[in-house]
């Protein structure tokens, strides 16, 4: 591709002070991964990419830079001057604008109305000066080649155009430094190319862009500089010309990979869960999971690799009985296709949901009540129709002990725990009651290193004890490291079987996009 040449020509002659500098930024809070000693220097007139895995702390960092959260320590300098943002308003005043991953536009308003919303130009103090607004928007749009008509309704625009409206919105407010949070997540490849052309146009005009992503090929094609974040801290700043996607991936993941070589197979011949010809249809009757079949044996971890949104969530919900599906699901010897979620759980399926806060916990209920959730028909939580408080509370203490859930007690609300501790509680809960099959969706997403290692250990131990695990993860190293066998899901179909002992994240990644089917 030819884009690298364009950006280097502009950046070489402006060796001014950095547009944004972060020095030792630290943020601690009871949530997911916080930031620790972040160091970052963004030069003016460049696209600076910040890459890292999901949950590495990229979003927290951007929220700090945009004034949505205040750091506990460290210094932010914009154009050389130290700043302390209390609200996004302060950041905007300093010339920083943010384009969110999810668009924040009102569909039933025009582009112009959306752009001026909240900073309307006034006419004689009361009226809105639409004329001035239209002129200004036209000016900006032309200057940067964004090509957005001010009077179109937003609901009539495509995704790419909506994103340009978001960019216009921040430019209109005078931003000279743009933060783009995973801007390509919602775009198709062609729109990604258009966006990148726009971004190059913006930096040519002297603007600075901070581009957050975990898609390495995109980062390499658009960025002038790259900073890698891992586990909440900046681990490297590299020049995209000197680095390959593979090297970047290694930097992102670090050396804490589980090593696939050091374990022996525990796979047995007994099939614990068999899925045959499973098809799940979406709202419009389109198959989101199509004709999927697989077996999981006792002591086996079956990993499902795939780009998110290719039917993994629907597959899991179908197996849990939360979503209607065609096909046959057999648990041991029993056909459970017609069973309710409750009965499947009672039959020995444990479930670590993808979104623990929505599906796994009652955030505003104490831990011991969360221990009951999903097990409200089983000992030690109930005696007949009665809740067994003593039993549930005692068993919650056991889980906290065995799974090292860091909490001052079992009466605090689940919302008060950090993400990793919430997840350990869920894992402990789902492991109790002797499950036969465990469905684990992204079991270590947004969890700190210690908790991740602990969860992996628990999964390995359970597997050794004969548990069958269906593992779905976006973390390819986790998939490769834990799985005994791997399948690749693409657009709802299983497109490839991969041997985890003989695959790299790169090859698996290309198989997930459909490129490596022949390889």
């Amino acid at each position, binding site marked *: 591709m030819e884009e690298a040449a364009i950006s280097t020509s502009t950046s070489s002659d402006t060796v001014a002070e950095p547009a944004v500098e972060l020095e030792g930024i630290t943020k*601690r809070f009871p949530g997911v991964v916080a930031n620790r000693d972040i160091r970052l220097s963004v030069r003016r007139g460049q696209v600076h990419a910040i890459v890292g895995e999901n949950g590495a702390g990229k979003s927290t960092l951007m929220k700090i830079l945009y004034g949505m959260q205040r750091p506990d320590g460290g210094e932010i300098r914009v154009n050389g001057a130290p700043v302390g943002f209390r609200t996004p308003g302060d950041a905007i005043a300093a010339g920083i604008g943010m384009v969110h991953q999810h668009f924040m536009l009102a569909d039933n308003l025009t582009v112009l109305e959306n752009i001026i919303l909240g900073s309307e130009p006034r006419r004689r103090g009361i009226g809105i000066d639409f004329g001035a607004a239209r002129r200004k928007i036209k000016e900006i749009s032309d200057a940067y080649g964004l090509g957005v008509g001010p009077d179109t309704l937003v609901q009539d625009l495509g995704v790419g155009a909506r994103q340009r409206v978001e960019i216009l919105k921040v430019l209109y407010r005078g931003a000279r430094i743009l933060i783009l949070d995973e801007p390509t997540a919602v775009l198709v490849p062609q729109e990604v190319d258009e966006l990148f052309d726009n971004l190059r146009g913006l930096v040519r005009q002297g603007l600075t862009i901070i581009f957050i992503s975990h898609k390495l090929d995109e980062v390499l094609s658009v960025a002038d500089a790259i900073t890698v974040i891992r586990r909440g801290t900046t681990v490297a700043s590299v020049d995209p010309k000197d680095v390959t996607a593979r090297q970047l991936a290694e930097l992102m993941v670090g050396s804490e990979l589980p090593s696939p070589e050091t374990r022996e197979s525990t796979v047995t011949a007994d099939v614990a869960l068999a899925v045959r010809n499973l098809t799940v249809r979406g709202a419009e009757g389109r198959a989101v999971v199509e004709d999927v079949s697989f077996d999981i044996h006792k002591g086996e971890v079956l990993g499902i690799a795939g780009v998110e949104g290719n039917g993994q969530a629907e597959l899991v919900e179908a197996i849990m009985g939360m979503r209607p599906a065609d096909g046959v699901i057999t648990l041991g010897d029993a056909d459970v296709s017609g069973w309710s979620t409750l009965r499947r*759980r009672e039959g020995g399926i444990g479930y670590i*949901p993808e979104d623990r806060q929505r599906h796994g*916990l009652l*955030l505003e209920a104490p831990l011991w009540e969360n221990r009951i959730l999903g097990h409200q*028909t089983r000992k030690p939580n109930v005696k007949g129709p009665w809740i067994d408080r003593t039993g549930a509370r005692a068993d919650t203490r056991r889980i906290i002990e065995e799974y090292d859930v860091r*909490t*001052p007690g079992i009466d605090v609300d689940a919302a*008060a725990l950090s993400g990793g501790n919430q997840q350990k509680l869920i894992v402990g809960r789902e492991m109790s009651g002797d499950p036969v099959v465990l469905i684990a969706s992204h079991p270590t997403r947004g969890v700190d290193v210690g908790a991740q290692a602990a969860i992996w250990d628990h999964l390995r131990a359970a597997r050794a004890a004969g548990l069958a695990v269906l593992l779905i993860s976006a973390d390819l190293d986790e998939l490769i490291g834990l799985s005994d066998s791997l399948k690749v899901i693409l657009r709802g179909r299983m497109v490839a079987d991969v041997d985890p002992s003989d695959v790299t994240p790169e090859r698996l990644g290309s198989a997930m996009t459909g490129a490596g089917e022949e390889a």
Partner: protein
Amino acid sequence: MSSSFTDRLLGRVRLGGLLGLAAPLLAIVFAGLVTSIILQLTGNPPFETMKLLADYGAQPRTIVMIINLATTYYISALAVAIGFRMNLFNIGVDGQYRLAALVAAAVGGALVLPAPLHVGVTILVAVAVGGLWASIAGLLKVTRGVSEVISTIMLNAIATGFGAWLLTTDRLAVAVSGSNNIGTKPIPPSGQFPGFGLIPGTQAKVFGFVVVAALLGLAYHILFNWTRFGFDLRATGKSESAAVASGVNVRKMVLLTMVLSGAAAGLVGMPQLLGASYSYSLDFPTGLGFTGIAIALLGRNNPVGIAIGALLWSFLDNSSDILDLEGIPKEIVIIMQGTIVLSVIVAYELVHRYRLAAEQRRVSRELSAGASAPEGVAA
């Protein structure tokens, strides 16, 4: 380590239940303040007016009336609260209790049975009618996705029309002697719920139904806190998605909760019917279901809180009668009630948010004290 004000403020100290109690008290004081200002503005002396209310409310006869009305309010608020616990807004308690009372009055008036059985059957009829009427809204919600707010409001209107149709002399009603009122045939003594003279210094009797209301509150507490059903119900209310994932059949729970709420609503008219009027006539009290909504909010769906709320509401309603005699508009009490509800909701929300944030801070602090605390803590 002793706790300072900032410790408490920043949540380093575990909060007791006192804060939860302070919120409604402050709200009531605030409402009193607002009412005083309005009284002052309209040229009435605030302090004397309040004293008038308190004095009249403390008279033995008024106390009996306060307890009796509060009994009704209590049951109504419990019925609403059952729905609230799983985010169901049963606005239809009003229609449910009126229809239930009408049918139960007709059945009770027609029956000839020995005393305890007669009362029991009448109550059972009321519970069944209330539950059935509410089940329409529940069924519509689980089968067609109709919001229960809309359907119960509409069912209220239908209940009014249906009740008017039933309460004619061609069907369930007879003319009340000595007036142009019509009502159901009076329930004979065997079907009446005896009251008792609890308060000395007055002939007025406290509804015997106050015992039933108290038992209902106890049953409510046990159901929600000690049973699996109650756990499922609360879980669904707190997070429907988590309830589904944990195997709760949400549709079934919606229907059951709606029926349960309606069944409780069926009892709302019983204290009045079985304890005082013995007949459902054109002047049977209306609007109790809406008062129940306000009181359920006031009492935070807690059985004790609701009892206090019901008593407060009933006190204001009953003692306001004296204001008219003194030339002060009794509507001032309605302003006070409205202000109480609004300020209580705001106060609870503030306390709730504060508590949640305080607990998170407390947990992270307790943990970072034990584990490896990173450098640079800015207090």
